[in-house]
């Protein structure tokens, strides 16, 4: 497939997507305000998928490892935060949890990445499976396995917007909006870090070429610790948002599984791809659930992402924004 066909396919995909999202309006089955609610709701959950996906992409770029443990890290972060908050105020608990995530990153580098350096990607992937089970078991051992309520003072009542414009206005969850703003801030901070700091430049260098990065004096081991720590921070933010929405429980991990189709869609090596992929999947599954659900028997939300990912794997394995060849030195 050459560059032109590839670009055309991308354009075709986005046209199809826009058409799919607008279709309910055109075929008259929807009221505009309700449609807007669905779209906004979809994009909001998309933001959260994108967050977890960013964690995956970060680690994949810097160490060539597909980190199966990202979901477990989200749960672990949320669990740690909620239990520490029983003893300490929120801000302090946040710091303690972040320290725990950095410690985890350090341990992973010492005990997993370093001994397995230069192994096949599949070996490293299996190792992260192990890490996931370990974090799970360890988290439950230390913090217990109940369902905890994470209350960080998010306003729960939805807001009614644009009441003047439409009859009845549109209902928007304040919680979702705050979450999206938090996620956006995190992404902005990460972008600033990657683009404007020497350390960020070093991280991009490692992502581009391990060998060259080492030759200019960037110690890979330290970079891995930093990257896993940043992934830990991202997991923490995702954990806070998901946790306060749904309660801190085992199923947080399963939601994080949605990040896999997101990175397949966006491309394993692309940060913007993770964000756009997340939004597309969040939007797509909500719109099809609400408007196609009645015809297809519902439950579309559960499989939409995976079917889309499967189609991408078959026809465009590098995703929308990924690189064609994924090699590890």
């Amino acid at each position, binding site marked *: 497939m050459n560059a032109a066909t590839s670009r055309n396919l991308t354009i075709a995909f986005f046209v199809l997507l826009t058409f799919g999202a607008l279709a309910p309006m055109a075929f008259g089955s929807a009221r505009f305000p309700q449609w807007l609610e669905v779209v906004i709701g979809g994009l909001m959950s998309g933001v959260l998928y994108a967050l977890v996906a960013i964690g995956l992409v970060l680690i994949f770029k810097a160490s060539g490892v597909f980190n199966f443990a990202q979901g477990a890290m989200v749960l672990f972060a949320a669990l740690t935060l909620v239990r520490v908050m029983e003893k300490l105020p929120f801000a302090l608990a946040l710091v303690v949890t972040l320290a725990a995530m950095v410690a985890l990153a350090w341990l992973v580098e010492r005990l997993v990445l370093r001994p397995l350096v230069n192994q096949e990607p599949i070996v490293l992937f299996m190792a992260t499976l192990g890490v996931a089970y370990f974090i799970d078991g360890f988290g439950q051992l230390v913090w217990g396995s109940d369902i905890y309520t994470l209350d960080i003072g998010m306003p729960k009542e939805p807001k009614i917007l644009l009441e003047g414009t439409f009859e009845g206005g549109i209902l928007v969850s304040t919680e979702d909006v705050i979450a999206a703003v938090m996620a956006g801030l995190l992404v902005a901070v990460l972008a*600033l*870090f990657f683009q*404007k*700091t*020497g*350390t*960020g*430049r*070093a991280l*991009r*260098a490692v*992502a*581009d*070429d391990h*060998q*060259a*990065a*080492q*030759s*200019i*004096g*960037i*110690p890979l081991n330290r970079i891995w610790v930093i990257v896993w720590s940043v992934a830990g921070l991202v997991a923490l933010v995702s954990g806070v948002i998901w946790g306060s929405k749904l309660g801190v429980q085992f199923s947080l991990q399963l939601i994080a599984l949605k990040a896999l189709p997101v990175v397949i869609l966006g491309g394993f090596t692309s940060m913007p791809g993770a964000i756009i992929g997340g939004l597309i999947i969040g939007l797509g599954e909500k719109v099809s659930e609400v408007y196609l659900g009645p015809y297809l028997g519902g439950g579309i939300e559960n499989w939409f992402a995976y079917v889309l990912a499967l189609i991408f794997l078959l026809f465009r394995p590098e995703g929308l924004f990924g690189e064609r060849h994924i090699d590890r030195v």
Partner: protein
Amino acid sequence: MNLRDAEPATVARRVGDVILAVEGVSLAFGGVKALTDVSFDVREHEVRAIIGPNGAGKSSMLNVINGVYRPQAGQITYRGTKRSAMEPHIAARAGIARTFQSLALFKGMSVLDNMLAGRTLLMKSNIFLQALRIGPALAEETEHRKRVEDIIDFLEIQHVRKTPVGRLPYGLQKRVDLGRALAAEPKVLLLDEPMAGMNVEEKQDMCRFILDVNDEFGTTIVLIEHDMGVVMDLSDRVVVLDYGRKIADGTPDEVRANQAVIDAYLGVKH
């Protein structure tokens, strides 16, 4: 054309003491002996060439010097410290920079960012100051950029400063590779076939850059090159490897007259 003789002798050019020595280095990959008991030294400010037929072990030697490979036997002495193996980031920290035979650039990053990355080790202020561009970090960043711009001017690649390196033609990528190594302000520069795949004109430019670096900054250069004309013009002393063994060591003229070298190259005309 002998570029070297035409140059006036400057202070920096005066060859000094041994800065780097490898002794009895052996390296094997499974059954393949890439290097067998190789010893030689490099003096400060000199241009030292490593030549030999394909697969002779030249790249392996550079990889041992900057720590990409750990030899099974032997020692590397660099500026008075003897080690059984280098580590890439220790080598970099100690002033050894290098380029790779197969380019190893940060392809997604601009020329400017590639070069700035080359200065990673020279950056001091912490990342929070860097991100906010305040106080000493701002002054530092400005200084780093100035240095990098000087190198960009020197290598005559101003017109592509902001271009992602992956989009440049091969000859320019080679130049960026050299530039990134120079950005680190190294004491010793290891160049693995810097002119491979270039046309005559590009080769001449590259020769000029290498000589200028050596003359103006006194940078010690270890150079692998297949083009015999280039080797003879540029280098002060030459090591010849064949099948992983050192078969000759001396000035270009001595090496050219050496029977073992002639035999090794017989049928392998360069």
